[in-house]
């Protein structure tokens, strides 16, 4: 019988304690970000999709070694190159120039293996995170074109 009443008492007390907590929370300021109206800045290390880095002349630093293509677990990078002849120290040398850098972002798992495997520092992570579309073609990025657009 004593247990019966002490349980009722304990129960009522616990309920009141809980209500006290939610009451206090009621008057605290909100903590949410009103997303479409407010956005937050991504941290410096945020791993978005990749972008090419331009050298001083605005050309991509990439030398088409293909390390990123091989390192990618999902096979979402396709490279293309044309070879041109350039004169270095009076000698004519063949040099590969990046003609195509396609990223299939639908397959990308944002692991960053490509950036890590790049020995020439030619890739970086984008800070863009508002990527949404109803068509999957929108996620076949032509990074070379994006670089030109950024340069322009």
């Amino acid at each position: 019988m004593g247990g019966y009443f002490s349980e009722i008492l304990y129960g009522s007390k616990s309920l009141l304690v809980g209500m006290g907590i939610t009451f206090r929370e009621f008057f605290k300021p909100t903590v949410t970000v009103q997303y479409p109206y407010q956005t937050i800045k991504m941290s410096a290390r945020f791993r978005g999709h990749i972008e090419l880095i331009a050298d001083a002349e605005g050309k991509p630093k990439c030398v088409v070694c293909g390390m990123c293509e091989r390192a990618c677990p999902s096979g979402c990078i396709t490279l293309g190159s044309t070879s041109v002849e350039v004169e270095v120290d009076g000698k004519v040398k063949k040099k590969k120039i990046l003609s195509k850098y396609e990223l299939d972002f639908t397959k990308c798992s944002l692991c960053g293996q490509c950036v890590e495997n790049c020995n020439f520092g030619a890739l970086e992570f984008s800070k863009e995170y508002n990527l949404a579309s109803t068509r999957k073609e929108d996620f076949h990025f032509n990074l070379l074109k994006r670089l030109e657009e950024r340069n322009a």
Partner: protein
Amino acid sequence: MSAPIQLRPDETFILNVGPQHPATHGVLRVKMQMDGEYIVKSETVLGYVHRMHEKMGENRTYAQFLPNLSRLDYLGALGYTHGHVLAIERAAGIEVPERAEYIRAITVELNRVASHLFWFGAFVMDLGGFSPLMYAIQDREHILDMLEAVTGARLTYCYYRFGGLYNDVDDNFIEAAKRFIPRMRKSLKKYDALVTGNIIFRKRLEGIAPVSAEMCRKYGATGPVARGSGINFDVRKNEPYSVYPEFDFDIPVYHECDSLARYRVRMDEMEQSLRIIEQGLEKLPDGPFMAEKKPKTIKLPVGDYYQAVETARGSFGIRIVSDGDKNAYRLKLRSPTYSNMHLFDEACEGMLIMDALAFMGSLDLVIPEIDR
């Protein structure tokens, strides 16, 4: 035992809980044979998010497999990547700098707190209380912000590398982690008063869904499920790995075997994780964060290797059978929830459906991790 369920003329009916059901947290399906609100028999149907990570492990190099690990358990991803890198380091004999191991331990424990917080919120929501979920998410958000600043991702981290880390932590992270600990302790007190002490909550969990220690053993249950059944088992203590022997922390064990015991184990574990983080930040040595001697392409010697780690859900094991190539010949992932969920079928017989769903919540299921 899961024998096939057939419709029988004994006034029982089949209830399909899932694959889309609010209590199954994903796409798990449980076929329950019901007698009114009582469960006569239940059969779990898995495989709705099966992605065959093990085959991917055979096709990809060890480094390429790294992002897959974090897709297993999206709530406590770092623990799983930790298991993978430890297995490779063990087999290839790579020495990891101490600083890297400390940072690994700190981030894994932060991730464990985040995972437990989300479980706490989701569990109370399973029981019908919604606000604690929001409070838990607020606290978890601080952890995710910290981890994002370090790893670059919020959930599917790919931070550990064979022989070290992808990147070093900065002072901002250490400051933020130090600020986080007292704030989290305060929140834990709040949760204790708001939820643990609540009479409705206790009445729903006390003595409900007993899982005996023997049953845990037969099913191979680990983690908080086993510790709630009075089994003192935590891979961090039983088979110490990484720098865990350096830390002073306790393994919470409860002997009641009921859902409340499992709940309390996890709540106490958060406090223990905070202790580890605190000590780790204090002891954090200077030095490199990446091993200097490391082969460019990892090839493991012929043989098979096993590594167990304690993740937020229990003992995660990774078995690598190598034939000397740069990718595994066979890669087996032993996921803790797979075994923990297995005992649900037997344990829930004769239970009311609402208790069974509370029990399911107390197992802390992450379906992609069961299905792999």
